[in-house]
């Protein structure tokens, strides 16, 4: 087993980043102009990194599979972005954000990285506001905050229910500014199919032009993967249809270790599945839990409508089980609690796989406050509800519209029906403190890496991490590597490593067309998703995982002998793109099950049924599993485990409690 060095700087936790930043080797402006950096992905991490590196003077090439960088899936993030600004004067601090994130991650994240994240969080808000991102404000003109899960302070900045959109458009405009100046070359509708490694260092990529089918060689001094998470391994998730693991997986197959693949976040509040035709699931932001109350009937199989069930016959189970945090417990806890109620027979709706998210109490409360603001004294209930609805509409209007559109029900009148769904993946490419993978010169940022969220991510922290990595971390840490690369001449694109990588990408494409099978790509994707959801989803056990591994191996064989890919290689062919992505998902799915089977404990989003407390809470095994599982890919789809021990020097490791 290779020793994994996370390159964490020496010194006090609070000084590590400051010290490193001021002692980091630099690249002078003239040299930056001759250094090329490849950025794969244009979401929050990719766009912010590409823009910032170009501002600094590097030559940047940025790739995305969408028709515009503005459509990367960060755009769909709803609720908000955390920052330790303490604008609310409620006791927030860098340390508290650090502590909440480590605890929320169930003590499976690296202390030094998380502290750095908390340190730069405030700069992100400043930067975004300077770019013209219209975050929500109070009447006094200052920024507003809302509550999110897993914390007791209000530190979440937001723009209605479309915070991700506004932040991404900010980063996108910074990126397009550099494109306009010729400092970033943008490649839309391009998909990375191989990392090119020369003498052990990442030196370029092979990308397919999705419109022409042409395989292109691009060289650079460093490659940044900002390609997002792999939730679509479950087929149904809140990810976009195109979200995929291919860039990260190809890097994994070229030597980048994959960290904690089994850590998956199942988000508690999504619109339930309505039928077999379903292609994706839609999230209802966690911020709604702040203003809503979750409940199920106290009676099993209660046939009554929600409105007909009196208050004392409702079970507000989160408030009952977790009085200190109530509806604001972290996502993993809330999801398991919903599953527990539904499995026990208290679910609602046609499928009985749903619980209520009710806004009535808060609508009335907001209405009463608004009535005071408008000088209406002793308002009646109807006035309160009317005014309250307007406040709710301002805060969450787009989410309520979306719910009405999808379900055909009016959430202002009826409580929402919600159920957990796959949303985010904490696992990802293993990176050191500098965000470098185990392949020198190859970096991973944002959701594509494993680094900051441990076994469970807190709400509103994904946007924070993506932008922290892109705006404030990589611009510094990459200098340390590049300062040693000044003598490296541009890599000739006829180098054998490029020829080989291109041949490998072409070989896979040719193989797809040669199969001429009988089943569509989606057929296999749905089968994989079903195995993953049932056996590697919200609850896992050794028997199910062992079965899943065998089933996925069989599925891989079936896929490679019976898939049908229509059309041709040298044209715009979305089915071919999907085939490549599903092939990688199948291999990843197996690794996720292997990782889940290896981790004989429950922590955060990874819940092994064999390891739980009497009250049904996750039971960690710190003695044996306080490590990052970093997997190395071996020939023939085999995986070898390496461990990075996690040391907690600044936080007392304890059984996580939100009671």
């Amino acid at each position, binding site marked *: 087993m290779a020793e994994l060095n996370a390159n964490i700087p020496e010194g006090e936790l609070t000084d590590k980043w400051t010290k490193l930043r001021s002692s980091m080797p630099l690249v002078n402006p003239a040299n930056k102009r001759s250094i090329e950096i490849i950025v794969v992905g244009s979401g929050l991490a990719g766009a*912010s990194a590409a823009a910032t590196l170009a501002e600094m003077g590097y030559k940047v090439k940025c790739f995305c599979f*969408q*028709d*515009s960088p503005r*459509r990367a*899936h960060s*755009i*769909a993030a709803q609720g908000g972005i955390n920052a330790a600004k303490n604008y609310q004067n409620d006791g927030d601090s860098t340390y508290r954000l650090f502590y909440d994130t480590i605890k929320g991650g169930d003590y499976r994240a690296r202390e030094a990285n998380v502290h750095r994240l908390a340190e730069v969080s405030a*700069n992100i808000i*400043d*930067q975004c*506001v*300077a*770019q*013209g*991102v*219209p*975050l*929500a*404000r*109070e*009447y*006094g*003109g*200052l*920024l507003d905050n809302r509550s999110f899960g897993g914390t007791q302070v209000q530190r979440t900045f937001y*723009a*209605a229910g*479309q915070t991700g*959109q*506004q932040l991404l458009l900010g980063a996108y*405009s*910074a990126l*397009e*500014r550099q*494109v*306009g100046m010729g400092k970033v070359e*943008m490649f839309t509708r391009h998909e990375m199919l191989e990392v090119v490694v020369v003498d052990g260092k990442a030196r370029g990529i092979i990308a397919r032009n999705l*419109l022409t089918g042409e395989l292109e060689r691009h060289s650079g001094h460093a490659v940044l993967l900002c390609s997002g998470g792999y939730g679509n391994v479950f087929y149904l998730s*809140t990810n*976009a*249809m195109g979200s995929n693991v291919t860039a990260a997986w190809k890097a994994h197959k070229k030597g980048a270790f994959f960290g904690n693949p089994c850590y998956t976040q199942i988000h508690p509040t999504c619109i339930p599945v*309505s*039928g*077999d*035709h*379903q*292609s*994706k699931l*839609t*999230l209802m932001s966690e911020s709604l839990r702040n203003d809503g109350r979750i409940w199920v009937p106290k009676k099993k199989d209660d046939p009554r409508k929600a409105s007909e069930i009196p208050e004392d016959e409702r079970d507000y189970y989160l408030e009952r089980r977790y009085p200190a945090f109530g509806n604001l417990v972290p996502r993993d806890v809330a999801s398991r609690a919903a599953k527990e109620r539904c499995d026990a027979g208290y679910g609602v709706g046609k499928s009985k796989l749903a619980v209520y998210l009710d806004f009535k109490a808060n609508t009335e409360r907001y209405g009463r406050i608004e009535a005071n603001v408008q000088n209406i004294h002793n308002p009646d209930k109807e006035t309160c509800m009317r005014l309250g609805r307007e406040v709710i509409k301002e805060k969450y209007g787009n989410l309520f519209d*979306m719910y009405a*559109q*999808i379900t055909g029900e009016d959430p202002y009148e009826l409580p929402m029906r919600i159920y957990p769904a796959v949303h985010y993946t904490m696992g990802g490419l293993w990176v050191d403190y500098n965000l470098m993978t185990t392949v020198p010169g190859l970096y991973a940022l944002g959701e594509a890496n494993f680094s900051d969220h441990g076994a469970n991510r807190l709400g509103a922290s994904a946007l924070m991490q993506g932008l922290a990595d892109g*705006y404030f971390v990589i611009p510094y840490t990459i200098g340390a590597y590049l300062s040693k690369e000044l003598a490296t001449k541009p890599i000739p694109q006829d180098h054998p490593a490029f020829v080989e990588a291109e041949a490998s990408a072409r070989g896979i494409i040719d193989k797809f067309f040669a199969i001429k099978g009988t089943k*569509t790509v989606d057929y296999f994707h749905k089968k994989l998703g079903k195995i993953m959801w049932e056996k590697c989803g919200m609850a896992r056990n050794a028997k199910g995982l062992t079965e899943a591994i065998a089933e996925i191996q069989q599925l891989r064989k079936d896929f490679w002998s019976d898939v049908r890919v*229509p059309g041709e290689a040298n*044209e*715009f062919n*979305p089915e071919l793109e999907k085939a490549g992505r599903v092939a990688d998902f199948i291999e990843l799915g197996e690794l996720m099950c292997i990782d889940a089977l290896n981790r004989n404990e429950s922590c955060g989003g990874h819940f092994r049924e064999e390891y739980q407390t009497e009250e049904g809470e996750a039971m960690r095994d710190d003695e044996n599993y306080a490590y990052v599982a970093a997997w190395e890919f071996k020939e023939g789809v085999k995986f070898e485990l390496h461990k990075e021990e996690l040391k907690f020097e600044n936080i007392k490791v304890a059984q996580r409690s939100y009671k």
Partner: protein
Amino acid sequence: MSTGNMNLTLKIWRQKNTKAKGGLVDYKLSDISPDMSFLEMFDVLNEELISKGDEPVVFDHDCREGICGACSMFINGRPHGPKEGVTTCQLHMRSFKDGDTIVVEPWRAKAFPVVKDLTVDRSAFDRVIAAGGFISVNTGNAQDANNLPIPKVQADSAFEAAACIGCGACVATCKNASAMLFVSAKVSQLAQLPQGQPERYRRVQTMVAQMDAEGFGNCTNTGACEAECPKGISLENIARMNRDYLSAKFVSEEDI
């Protein structure tokens, strides 16, 4: 797979590539569920086509929750179909009736050439943003966010303009294929914020110049763009942009 009971006739624009001649092709679909989204209905069609050995219909889509702006179908003569305030992906089959014939075409505009079937090239929008749709502030230059109070009304108005998803429905529905709603939304967002003031007059001129260079048509104030915008972007933005554009000619010290 389908579990519903709707039978439909689809007339879909098929076009092999930008240069090829395209045309409407008829398809019959049965057992469609009213709970399906419009794009899920297309998934069913494509699965059938692939199984029969035919080529599936190519269309842009990604988030399927109405925010990425990728989906772009011109349905029965209207961008994003018959329902107001929704994108194609948020349109559900319950908005149609059993036995309906549905015509589906791509966006049509000189500045949005067809790439294949229902997919068009909207990169002109990116180039308009690259020409000036930003505030020039490098990373690391920002002051504390609360040092710059912005009245709530103004911030809310900027946000409403910023809600544009860049789908291009405004261009597709305009008889002149004008991009004024899209361009004015960005101009107006930044012009209403104090951070946007230093480049206010420069921005409006460079963006309008790029818009014209891309081949978008002129605005004749019919208001079709506002009526069809899935995000309710207001015509007021166009008025605001016109005012700024005119002012720029007098106020701006730069010659652009």
